[in-house]
């Protein structure tokens, strides 16, 4: 039903827009990390991705954090940290088993795992510049 009142669109803050764009660009890598490497289920990964997006927006607002693009490695650290804590809890509670590969991954520091993923980020950036 038309009311005659114009719909007022509130433009998103340009900085927030940039943060969301960076997050979106990195989402593929995050999903691979969560599902393929940390072996989360699809539903669990999607819930975590939602939390990560809110966290990343607030993280980029913290004083001293540089551009959203330069904050991407920290996004991966947070992703690996949470995935590790979550899986350790679930495995510890007996809800799920784990294999040797996953055990080795969970023993590694999330920052180290994230650093490996960051190298994939550099490749992504390179490809984007090339395109």
């Amino acid at each position: 039903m038309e009311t005659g009142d114009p719909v007022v669109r509130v433009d998103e803050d340009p900085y927030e827009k940039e943060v969301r764009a960076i997050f979106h660009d990195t989402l593929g890598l995050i999903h691979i990390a969560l599902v393929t490497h940390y072996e989360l289920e699809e539903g669990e990964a999607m819930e975590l991705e939602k939390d990560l997006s809110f966290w990343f927006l607030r993280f980029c607002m913290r004083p001293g954090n540089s551009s959203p693009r330069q904050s991407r490695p920290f996004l991966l650290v947070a992703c690996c940290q949470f995935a590790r804590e979550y899986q350790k809890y679930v495995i510890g509670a007996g809800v799920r088993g784990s294999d040797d590969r996953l055990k080795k991954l969970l023993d590694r520091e999330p920052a180290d795992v994230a650093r490996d993923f960051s190298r994939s980020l550099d490749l992504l950036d390179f490809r984007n510049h090339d395109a």
Partner: protein
Amino acid sequence: MAREYLSTSEEDRSEDFKEENLSNCDVLLAICKILRDGVEISPAITVTEASSLYRWAANPLSAVGVFDEREYVLGEAALIAAKGSRVLGKLSDAEHWLDRSDAAFRHTVNPAPSLAGVAFERLALRYAAGRYEETLELLPSLKSSFKRLGMDIENAKTQFLEAMALRFVGREEEHFSLLRDLERAPEVRACPSLHGQVLVHIGVHETAVGEFETAARTYEQALPIVMKGNRPVALCELKWAIGDAYRAQGSLRRAIESYRGAKNDYQQLGFRAFVTQISLTIAETLLALGRDREAEWEILSALPVIEEEKMVPEGFAAVALLRESVRCRKTDPNALRELREHLQAKS
């Protein structure tokens, strides 16, 4: 929501109201920002609110954001409480809060910028305690951190702290040169609160070297910038500095007018130590004008605060001499000057 939360008194905040607001991380961080911005306007309230926020976030049953956000909020709340404690002159409390802030920020993702903020506050504390050489020794490392992190305004504030410490160790030329460089820096000009402070202290230096006309122009330039900066303390400092400039030129009546303006403002902010200091300055100026009775009233209003707040060591001779001289209705100007200089050196 954050403003509504803070404008509701503690007694009126039900558990549900607290839960609704504080379990929303966006509201929580907005509360932190408002407290941080208001620390110099109402430091006592800020410390109370920040402490309360810290206790809430430290409770494992409280839901605080996701990932490292509990540690971040703890670090922020503790840092805000530390700043407020320092402004109130409670240096020991400030140090404890900084330790808590440090301990929390260490567990956040990318802790470097937050820890640099804590390091700045530690230096500000050393400066407040009169440890100027130590402050100067540790400054270069912090400036380098802020530069590396791209935190330009924080770097500028560190340089301002450096300029003030240089003055107190007698390195006046370096002090003035640094202030001049800061005044021209684009990041300082974009920050009225800092720009205003820098201009005020340039004016103070110009007055001290007898360049009264130049100082007057500097103060004129400073006034609208200080008003824009929304830092009431800076406006008090400006009025005090203008009073000093008038006094140095022998315009004692105008000096008193300016000093009384600053005293009034400090009173409204609750800064008892500065109110006391400026009362003694007013008293000295009144004595110079031969208005002895009014000088006595100013001194009598200041002495109880000096004792209550332990602003001088026990048995400080000038206090006893001054009290006795006022009692005899013949104020001792030397004792008054000695006391005023002692308090100004400490502040």
